[in-house]
């Protein structure tokens, strides 16, 4: 069965790129452009991994992440962060506080992202 990956990203181009790269590796990819759609999607269909872009519209990506981690159902889903910027080291600290280990600064190599997704899902499977 294909692994489901949810991409939360407001930039359509980035959605296309990430989606195309991941579908190449036989993942099922769903893209949403805002956090509320993301919650709707998660409630209806389970996702195995989330790729989250910070600086989302409607809600700051970080606070969405915190909300996500507070919901027991979703707190176990591994999250990969992508962003154009990380402001400063405080933001990084906050990310670490949310249990984020992997993040990709734009522009990143989509192949590396796909690799990271693979290793995360592998870890999930083993544990």
């Amino acid at each position, binding site marked *: 069965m294909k692994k489901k990956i949810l991409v939360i990203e407001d930039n359509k181009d980035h959605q296309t790129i990430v989606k*195309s790269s991941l579908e190449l590796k036989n993942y099922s990819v769903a893209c949403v452009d805002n956090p509320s759609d993301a919650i709707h999607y998660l409630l209806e269909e389970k996702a195995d991994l989330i790729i989250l872009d910070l600086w989302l519209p409607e809600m700051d990506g970080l606070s969405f992440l915190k909300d996500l981690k507070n919901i027991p159902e979703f707190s176990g889903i591994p999250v990969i962060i992508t962003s*154009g910027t990380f402001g400063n080291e405080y933001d990084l600290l906050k990310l670490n506080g949310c249990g984020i280990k992997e993040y990709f600064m734009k522009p990143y190599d*989509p192949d590396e992202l796909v690799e990271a997704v693979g290793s995360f899902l592998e870890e999930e499977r083993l544990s």
Partner: protein
Amino acid sequence: MSRQKRVFLTASAAAFFGYLWEFYLIHSHPPFLFFKVKPTWWIQGIILFISWRMGVFLTGLWKFQPASFSKKEVDREEEVKYLSRIYQDLSLSLRLEKQKFEAVLNGAPDGILTLDETGMIGFWNGSMEKLTNLEKEDVLGKPYGEALNFYSGAKLIDFLTFNGKNTVNLLDCKVGVSNGKEFPAFLSISSLKQDDKTPGQMIVTVKDITAQKEVEKLREEMIAMITHDLRSPLSSILGYAGLLQNQKLCVTEEDRQKFLAALIRSGKGMLLLINNLLETARMEEGKILVLSEPVKIKAVLDEVAENLSSLAKGKNLVLSVEAKDNLWVDSDKDKIHEIITNLLSNAIKFSRSGEAVKIASFEKNEKVNISISDSGPGIRNEDKELIFEKFSKIKKQGSTTGLGLYIVKKLTEKLGGEIEVVSQEGVGSTFTLVLPASRRSSASAQMSLVGSR
């Protein structure tokens, strides 16, 4: 007795006695006579004159004899008086100097306090009162720890003793006041003693750097925003290029075209942002030249629409331009081009797929109106003032550097025009650029009116 009177009297007396002496010499002791002639009236006159001068000379000698010679008591008294007057003058000027010094210290823009060897506060200036909201009377003579807490990891005294320096600067030190107030500060601590081991009196200057910190924060945010907005299209460009290059990905011809269009779109977006950044920098330096030449509105609108058509196409937007051939303004073509480009790219950015973006132009009350309307999410009332500010980033509108509308506003001001915003949340926004119409435009409009009659 005045000096002149005394001299006069002594001189007269000396002259008188001199005359007597000379008279006596001449008449009683002929052997001593200098001149073997009978004294005539003019010899007597010369002798009298010489005697008078001698008298004056002798009086002078007597006058300037040392104080110890005579009138000893009186002079000492005068001396004491004189000394005490000097002392009074000195102490007065010292007091004035001290007052002046304290006034300067009190009026200094930075907080200044002095501490004695044991850390007690000895001086607390006006700026310190303002900074901390603690009155001078409440803190003087108390240990500084009761009033202030410098989150510096060590006591102030230790800084000087450990470092063995006379002055230590703490560039960024958080200062906590006993009443709960906190502010970041630049501290400069100086010791008045030369000895390395034992600290003497200390002078502490406290400079409030809250404003600088805010500017710093703003700059950081600005840089973060710019990097985000530059990285984002760059990421798209690299991503699409990677997809096109990937042999394993079976890209259909349709997809290929789509990716290429997106590549170009991202490149153009980046170009617009860089142009905006440059324009902002130029504006800040005041280096903006505005031309005044006849500009055909239709030509500018068509050009902008053509430039941004790929952006609109990428989002499946219906872009329409409505402009008459006879609409002219006397203005700067490039600046109008820039304003419309920014307004239109915003409209495209905030429109959802399939929606319509309209550009319309018309003349009203001898003004040329160019309006750009979208059916996007609209602007909240509370945000309407903020959108024209530099680096304004209004939530919900996604990632924008917030330069576009700032530039639109500034350029419009330069052109002597106005920008009007009509927007309703959930319905859409219309931005209208209002410029004074050129005479040519009005004339042709009138002619067409005449012709239509």
